[in-house]
């Protein structure tokens, strides 16, 4: 989730896209990723190289790529939509790509970046999500059994305050800075004119580039990424709610997706005519007279169009009040015995 808008927050979009790129490379398909970007940097009119988002200066690595699917973009990234995605309380007509369809055996990775403070994260410069709301959302997820294990990574200023309030089991959290510290950005690119990445995510990306789907690196290595000498802020982590030992948790448990494959040596024969689907076309009834295309600008028909029948609406409050006033005045003046003259 990237929660920042405006061109000067280019680095937050680059952060999110680099994590997106890593998890896609390690095997998680787009149908299992919900990507939220609060603003469009790649096709922003200020971007000197359209359709690209770079993470390293001198434009070495384009993290936007050619195969990206953003599920929530621009004004859709709000606190309400984010919490609805997490808890699953989503309007019924939402398409599948915008839902988190997880169950009690799914491991979920949540990565958030943006501007934050002590206990809150700012969404699009107009609203905030507090650590209490986030903890409650995770508890709702736990009660509905929407996750097996959850890894929460946050790269904002004072990020550690966001995981202080978690109380649901099986959550591991990492943050880029402690309470009272700012997360700093890595390097600007003079051609693009903005800072490209944040330090913590830059070193996490470097770490993840070494991982491949079969690697055995565990979480303790991820905790060592970006020491204070490189990051200036002190990254923190929280594992007390997690049941397994972080030593035994593989990085690919959260960042990659490894499918169980069963190899068989027997041959299966597929019956050609078993379904017979091609032959199931029902015999179509042909029209009796030729069908026609509509005229694109039927001037005569337009001019003589009957005006649309206005739907009858019951009289509004003002009209009713006016009539009530008139009738009251009438009967006050002339008395009720004149009613028989009216009817």
């Amino acid at each position, binding site marked *: 989730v990237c929660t920042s808008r*405006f061109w000067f927050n280019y680095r937050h979009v680059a952060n999110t896209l680099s994590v997106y790129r890593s998890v896609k490379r390690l095997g998680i398909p787009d149908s299992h990723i919900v990507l939220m970007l609060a603003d469009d940097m790649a096709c922003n009119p200020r971007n000197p190289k359209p359709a690209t988002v770079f993470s390293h200066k001198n434009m070495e690595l384009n993290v936007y790529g050619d195969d990206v699917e953003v599920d929530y973009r621009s004004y859709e990234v709000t606190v309400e939509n984010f919490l609805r995605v997490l808890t699953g309380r989503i309007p019924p007509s939402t398409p599948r790509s915008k839902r988190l369809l997880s169950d009690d055996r799914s491991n979920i990775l949540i990565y958030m970046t943006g501007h934050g403070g002590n206990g809150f994260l700012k969404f699009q410069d107009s609203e905030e999500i507090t650590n209490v709301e986030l903890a409650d959302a995770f508890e709702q997820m736990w009660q509905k059994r929407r996750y097996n294990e959850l890894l929460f990574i946050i790269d904002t200023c004072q990020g550690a305050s966001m995981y202080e309030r978690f109380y649901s089991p099986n959550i591991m959290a990492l943050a880029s800075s402690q309470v009272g510290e700012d997360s700093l950005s890595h390097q600007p690119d003079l051609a693009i004119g903005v800072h490209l990445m944040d330090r913590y995510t830059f070193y996490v990306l470097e770490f993840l580039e070494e991982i491949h789907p079969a690697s055995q690196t565990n979480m303790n290595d991820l905790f060592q990424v970006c020491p204070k000498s490189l990051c200036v802020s002190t990254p923190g982590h929280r594992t007390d709610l997690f049941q397994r030992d972080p030593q035994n948790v593989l990085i690919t448990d959260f960042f990659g997706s490894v499918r169980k494959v069963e190899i068989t040596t027997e041959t299966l024969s597929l019956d050609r005519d078993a379904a017979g689907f091609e032959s199931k076309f029902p015999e179509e009834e042909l029209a009796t007279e030729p069908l*026609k295309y509509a005229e694109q600008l039927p001037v005569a028909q337009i001019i003589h169009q009957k005006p649309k029948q206005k739907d009858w609406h019951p009289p509004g409050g003002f009209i009713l009040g006016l009539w009530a006033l008139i009738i009251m005045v009438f009967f006050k003046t002339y008395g009720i015995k004149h009613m028989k003259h009216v009817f």
Partner: protein
Amino acid sequence: GGMAAALLLLLLLVAAGPGPGRADAGRERRDALREELLLSPLPTGDVAATFQFRTRWDADLQRGAVSHYRLFPKALGRLVAALGVRELHLALTQGFWRTRFWGQPPLQAPAGAELWVWFQPTVTDVDKAWKELSNILSGIFCASLNFIDSTNTVIPTASFKPLGLANGTDHHLLRYAVLPREVVCTENLTPWKKLLPCGSKAGLAVLLKAERLFHSSYHSQAVHIRPICRDASCLAVSWELRQTLTVVFDFFSSGQGKKDWSLFKMFSRTLTDTCPLASQSKVYVDISPKNKEKELLEVSPPPTSVHEAIVQGDKKTYAVYDLLSPLLFNTSRSLNVQLKWKRPQDSSEMPVPTLHAQRYVGGYGLQTGEICTLIHNTHPYRAFPVVLLETVPWYLRLYVHTLTIITKGKENKPSYIHYQPAQDRRRPHLLEMLIQLPANSVTKITIQFERALLKWTEYPPDPNHGFYVGSSVLSALVPSVTAMKDTDVEQSPLFTSLFPSSDGSSYFVRLYTEPLLVNLPTPDFSMPYNVICLTCTVVAVCYGSFYNLLTRTFHVEEPSRGGLAKRLANLIRKFRGVPPL
């Protein structure tokens, strides 16, 4: 009884007999893919490239349980069948087509996202189906189409007649919406490419690389689904899916200052092989001579054939490269079409299109304003009618009594007006007019509006950017220079057969004007805390002073003596009942 049953059984067995035979007949290919690329150099030195991928399926999606999808994408087929859609047109555009300088567009779309749909007469609740459709399409194309609701949907009565087969045009089955703020980027192109049968791996779609396509003045990708005639007799219906992508490359930003173009310069790739699923795959290059002179443009390598057609009322010549012909890839493995100008063009030769329009906001301040539309008819002697459709959001309150239409200094009364006023927060304004444009004239349409103050929760996160008003739509039957002959749809190139033409003397064109950006009076959102503090301080100082002045009285008080110890001692003495010190 038993005899009849036995006879019936026998008949059934006989009927089921030629089952395998019918299965073989059903195996014939019922869908076909044609792909086409049209390169047209524009008068200003830029070049427009229009891709069209057309999948035609000879099956009726509405009736019958169709479960096997081959070339027609399943996502769109299921959508059409489940929601009772008769026609669907979705366009996502970045940039603006400058009709005045570039000429009439083959198919223009307004900036942002545009969706218009005709539903089948069997659909009972059209609004519910429309809402579901926009949500499903927002998931397929990664666009924020779920923001389409009653505040930006209108029901046009005279424009947007169906482009496919139709029997009866009850406009209550039509819905039209525009989202001018929608951004188009690679995440919209990716699912669009995935709908193509060959994806972006073979055929013309290998040229579609996002880094080059979005570095352009105009990029428009669209999806059109409509029912068409299966053959000349038109007794059966086929479904057609057209995916079109138009991009205009700017010759200034592509460097080197020379007006020569090639596929490699435009797309940074060349064509290497064809899509095996396509029955036709061609590249057309517009080499029409201007002002009836000899050719100005030279193309290399030499084309496989030359095609002449009457497009948009004018005779045009095209160089055709048929990618499926074996002669083309004889000499080299890749095809890089190059266009070179034989002699330099000068700007005085720029032809002016017969119909073009522009729109702008007039007035000053944050309270009132005026929308002005200028429509130019540059034909020397023919007049023709045009339908103007304007959709204005509810927060710009239009005053219809200020609507004026002036042509050549005189008032021009429209032959048909349909105006539907807005309802706050529920419905936008809709203004549709049929105006006659006299020959060689400029028509100016002005209407004044007042800006509304929104509630503070209704402002978007960046309200100082401004609020967009969607493009207005001009639909016209423009008289052709050369009469068009009725040609077979299947044989002619795709770019000539999008609009069904009724007679050859005029051709149908749909133009869009610029979208407008207006500022609404915006509060300063960074100030609530400061404002509360300041206001409370002022109120406390003023009101508090008055209250004290009016109610405070002074009285003498005994000086208090003694410190804490004395007070404690007094307390104990009070308990004991002894008088204090």
